[in-house]
Structures are given as structure tokens and as C-alpha cells.
């Protein structure tokens, strides 16, 4: 069954690479431009649950990898087709410098906080995001703190080490 989803994806999108499925997961690599279209297609294929969006910093290659994890909600366990039990990972790579991507809020509304989080922690800009403001952080960081070239120790020393004790 997993073969059919794989075939239909590859038939619909020319530039999508689907890895051979593992035990219960399917890895789909797509160029950044076609991500909203791929996600919309998968949503119509009943993968209607965006579980999370994550980001990986491949500093040696100078790339950031954004991963969308999709799953499928059914009311009863017996309603699932076997291929709908898959977890689908949709991956895309963007350059580290001037990292930007199209927002997928139009496809999955719950992408909003994930994209904000990736924006503040990895410095990825999402085109079309309605409010790309920090989610957790209070300060401005020169390098986004989850990138691998962010020197945590030096930052902590400079920021918190420079604050003097008030008494004693």
C-alpha cells in the first residue's frame, strides 16, 4: 500500500523524492517552493494532522533542513487503511544565509506557533506569516540561539556574567 502513495506523490510532483518507506514512516524530500503544494496534496490524501515542524542546522553543508511531520487522524482504529498509519516526514533544505521559506499556515493553521518558534530560534523567515514576532525569547540575539555557530558559553558569560551582585 505504501507504494501507491509513493507513486502518486512522484507522479504528481516531478521534483519530489520519496525514500523507500521504513517500518512506519515515509520520508518525502521536496524543494522549498513546492512545500505548500505537497502538504496540501498530502492533506487531501487524509494526512490531516500536522504534528510538528522542526529544523536541523547542517552547518558543514551550509543548509537548514525543515521537517514537517504529518500523521492521519481517524475516529476508529479500524478505519485506517494500512498506508494511512504512516508518519510522513516532508523535508526540505534551504540555504543557511538568508534562510526563507513560504509559510504553510494556509494549509495547516496550527503551523503558526511552530513557524514563529523556528523563526526566533533559527532565524528562518517565513513569507506570508501574519505575525512573525518572538514566541519565547525576550532579548535580541545576534545569532539565533539554536544555530550551531551560537556560542552559548560565551554568550552566557557576556550576558549573565556581566551583571554584578547587588549586595555582598
Amino acid at each position, binding site marked *: 500500500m505504501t507504494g501507491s502513495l509513493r507513486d502518486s506523490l512522484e507522479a504528481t510532483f516531478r521534483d519530489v523524492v520519496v525514500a523507500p518507506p521504513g517500518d512506519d514512516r515515509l520520508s518525502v524530500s521536496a524543494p522549498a517552493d513546492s512545500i505548500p503544494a505537497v502538504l496540501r496534496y498530502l492533506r487531501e490524501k487524509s494526512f490531516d494532522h500536522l504534528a510538528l515542524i522542526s529544523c536541523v542546522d547542517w552547518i558543514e553543508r551550509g543548509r537548514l533542513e525543515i521537517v514537517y511531520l504529518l500523521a492521519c487522524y481517524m475516529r476508529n482504529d479500524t478505519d485506517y487503511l494500512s498506508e494511512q498509519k504512516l508518519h510522513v516526514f516532508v523535508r526540505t533544505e534551504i540555504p543557511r544565509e538568508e534562510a526563507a521559506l513560504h509559510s504553510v499556515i494556509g494549509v495547516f493553521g496550527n503551523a503558526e506557533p511552530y513557524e514563529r518558534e523556528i523563526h526566533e530560534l533559527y532565524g528562518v523567515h517565513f513569507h506570508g506569516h501574519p505575525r512573525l514576532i518572538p514566541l519565547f525569547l*525576550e*532579548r535580541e*540575539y545576534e545569532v539565533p540561539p539554536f544555530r550551531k555557530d551560537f556560542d*552559548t558559553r560565551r554568550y*552566557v558569560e557576556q550576558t549573565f556574567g556581566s*551583571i554584578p551582585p547587588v*549586595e555582598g
Partner: protein
Amino acid sequence: MDRNQIGKWLRSPAKMANKYSLHAVYFCTGCGIIEIPPVITARWDAERFGVLPVATPRQGNLFMITGYVSLKTLKAIIRTYEQMPDPKYTVGFGSCPVNGGMYWDSYNTIKHLDRYIPVDGWIAGCMPRPEAVFVGVTHLWTLIDKGKADGYLRYRRNYAAYRRNQEMLFGELEWPALHPCGSAAGGETQ
């Protein structure tokens, strides 16, 4: 009532009343707050020690910082602390407010709570047991007796220094100064 304490009650009734009615602001930071529900409910029953949780800072006089303090939480802590009426007592609970604990290298967690608000006592541990809270409370009683739990007075006295430290982290703060900052920008003991 303990007969030995009658003298204390007559000498300083206000102090004794404060001491035995510590109302803790139910403010949750970090993981330490998980120890507070058992402390205040039937299993350990903090009311034996006169400690009750209250809903708003304006009703409380005991502020327990329970766990790591991120920058965003620190802002809320400062505002909560400044809203509490005097006299007020702050207790750092767990090792993270003492020195950052396991978050020493974290980019978003403060390391020393007492550089931003005054702290009257610490309960070390990760996590401290509920019994440790009661040991802390009885120590706090002793400090109040001796007049050493004077965090709110120190905050007033050294407000310029505290405010400067807060502004070093946050830049301009969006609320006005609680006390006049005066000209002694370095604080008293600097």
C-alpha cells in the same frame, strides 16, 4: 499557643502575626511547582505552619521562586514581587534560582536570582522535599524574629542597583520605578 512566646507577642505583635500567617503567592516557575500541591494539601498540610496559597500577589507576603527562571518569567516575577504589600519575604526554592543549577549554560535562564530581586532565604535541592519547605519556613520564622528577613527593605534601599541590573537584561522596562532611584546609581554597598 506556646507560653514561652507570650513575651514575644507582647513585644512585637505585628511581627508575630506576620510570622504565623505566611500567605504564599501561587506563582509557578519551572519544575519546582510540582512540589507545592503536596505541600499545601492534606498529605503535608502547610497550613500547620500558617502557610496558605493565595491567588493574587496583593494578598500574599511569601514569594517562593520554584525552579529555573527564564527571562520572560523574570519579568513576571519582578512585577509580581513589586505588587506584593510590605512586609514580604522571598524564598528561592531549588538549586536553579541559587546559581542556575543545571541551566548554567542556558542562553535564556538567569543564573542568580538575588541580582534582580532581594531573596531572604534559599531552599537548596533538586527538588527539595516538602519537609524542606517546612524547614525553610521555620528558618524564615527565626529570621523574621531577628529582623533579618528584610528583603523588602533592602529592595527599597538598593532599588537603583536592582533596577539597573534588571535593565541590563531587558533594556528599558515598560513599568515605572517602584521606588525613587536617587543618585546612588551604584547601590549602597557597591
